[in-house]
């Protein structure tokens, strides 16, 4: 039973220099309690996709086709007030750069209380103890003292924990984590990811992890969706994706990720650049210009969705 279903979503941005076709025919599913990874490089559309899910897009964005359903609710047709009931309570999000995502002039304890006050039935005199409890749950040492701290007094890792506390205060069913550990040290990253993973398992919460780090996704996700230039190119259970990648881009991406002990001679790169998404003459497969397996159909044909294995989808004319 899918908690979140994105079907055939296409999205564009109207800008002064043209229309940017940011997403095209994207399909996505997240089951209850599952951790899904969305992996892509800059410009792949992974963050835009998640903003679309929560309907917190820029005013210049226009959804041109498709649907988004969360627990049966049609997110695209819902009113703003019903969406506000969902955001922060049913679906929460944590962002990159935790220090900038927190209100710099408000103590962190208060910020947690704000979320509790808005989205839960907590009584006023219960707000502070619950906030301290939330801080303790995200393993912040000395939570009573940290309750009174301002974001600038905390380290990057601690700020991220506060963000997680904010996000999880109302026990959401789905947590969207947008590059939550980019910019954090690798030891802090390990601690934060383990925290998110433990909390998700404890609460049966589904998680979407957006990252450019394939290795990170491989460690924490049950399934992975690979995105390139606004297209979903491959989706598979983690183990299958790395054992037998079907899309040439996925294979290249895996080969470009430095492995421990790898020599530089064997490190791959992806040739070419992302296509300009404002072009009207984009080929059907947006990876075509950079792909060594490109066929004539890749430019003009309708992109098929093949099923390599159960649960393993790839959108390619010439899969591996």
């Amino acid at each position: 039973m899918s908690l979140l279903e994105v079907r055939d979503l296409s999205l564009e941005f109207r800008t002064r220099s043209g229309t940017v076709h940011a997403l095209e025919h994207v399909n996505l599913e997240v089951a209850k309690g599952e951790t899904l990874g969305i992996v892509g490089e800059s410009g792949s559309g992974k963050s835009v996709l998640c903003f679309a899910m929560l309907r917190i897009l820029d005013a210049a964005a226009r959804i041109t086709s498709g649907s988004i359903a969360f627990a049966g609710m049609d997110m695209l047709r819902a009113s703003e007030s019903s969406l506000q009931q969902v955001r922060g309570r049913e679906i929460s999000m944590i962002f990159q750069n935790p220090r900038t995502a927190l209100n710099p002039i408000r103590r962190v304890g208060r910020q947690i209380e704000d979320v509790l006050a808005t989205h839960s039935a907590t009584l006023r005199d219960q707000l502070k103890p619950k906030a301290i409890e939330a801080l303790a749950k995200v393993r912040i040492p000395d939570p009573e003292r940290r309750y009174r701290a301002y974001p600038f007094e905390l380290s990057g890792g601690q700020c991220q924990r506060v963000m997680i506390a904010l996000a999880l205060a109302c026990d959401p069913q789905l947590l969207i984590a947008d590059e939550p550990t980019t910019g954090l040290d690798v030891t802090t990253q390990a601690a934060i990811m383990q925290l998110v993973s433990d909390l998700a398992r404890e609460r049966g919460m589904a998680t979407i992890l957006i990252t450019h780090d394939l290795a990170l996704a491989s460690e924490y996700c049950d399934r992975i969706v690979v995105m390139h230039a606004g297209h979903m190119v491959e989706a598979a259970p983690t183990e299958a994706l790395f054992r037998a990648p079907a899309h040439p881009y996925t294979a290249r991406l895996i080969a470009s990720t430095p492995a421990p002990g790898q020599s530089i001679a064997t490190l791959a790169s992806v040739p070419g650049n992302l296509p300009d998404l404002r072009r009207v003459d984009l080929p059907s497969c947006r990876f075509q210009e950079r792909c060594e397996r490109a066929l004539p159909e890749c430019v003009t044909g309708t992109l098929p969705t093949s099923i390599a294995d159960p649960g393993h989808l790839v959108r390619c004319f010439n899969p591996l």
Partner: protein
Amino acid sequence: MNVLDCVEVKMHFPVGKRALLHAVDDVSFSIGEGESVGLVGESGCGKSTLVRLVARMLDPTAGDIIYRGRNIGFIPSRSFAGTQFRRRIQMVFQDATDSLNPRHTAFDAIAEPVRRLGTAGNLAGQVVDTARKVGLPEELLPRYPHQLSGGQKARVGIARAIVLQPDLLVLDEPTAALDVSVQATILRLLAELKASLGMSYLFVSHDLNVVRMLCDRVIVMYLGRIVEQGPAEELFLRPGHPYTRALVNAIPSIGGRPADREVLHGEPRSPINPDPNVCRFFGRCPEQRDRCRKEAPPLRQVRPGVQLACHFA
């Protein structure tokens, strides 16, 4: 003779009236001819400060910085630009966007060191030559930074650092702002240039796999001190210091989480007025014992080429 020797370099910043922040404390290491030394550690460990000391953009509080036998630490950073040494030690920055003047073209950026420190004869020739070496197409030279892609900007940053053929190149996270698909090309370029131009590298990166790939030796820093130093492969395969072990185990890898990954709990100690009798890693170390609280371990050689600062390694 080594290209660079740092001897007990200290950098202390005053904080308030009576406190000192020990950003770099008693750091000693050397970089040999053609050697590539990696520098790793978490944020706040002092690697950015150390790197700026080596590049002589900051003046050390104490200690010696010696370039090919000449003490350049005494030359104030303000006047370093006027010495013959400036062209010998250059730097590649982390964020190419931030480190390129938005009002200068790529050509201007690469030509600047030549104009200031080199011989300006055949300036265009030198610039074009260097651009070719880094794989930057000549037609991109008249462009401004905002008209270049991330990879192209990175190449401009490298070109301007090597145009005068320095002996020592300091690289501060040169591929951190790049997508992984572009990273390999830049890393290979750096490896080739090192070989063809005979440069030594001081390579700072948070991506330990990259450091392992490009460096001969690695220095691990923690809260301003060196905790471990040794040949790259060995350090990653058999890390000696508990912090290094935690660091190496924390690196995500395709294939799933290692069973022995130890998540560090506890807060790092404060770098302000640190107690000289307590190990800097005490409080977070999974193997800490009572002795660690009473006596700070010195950095000492445990095997040829390997140094460790731990009582129990």
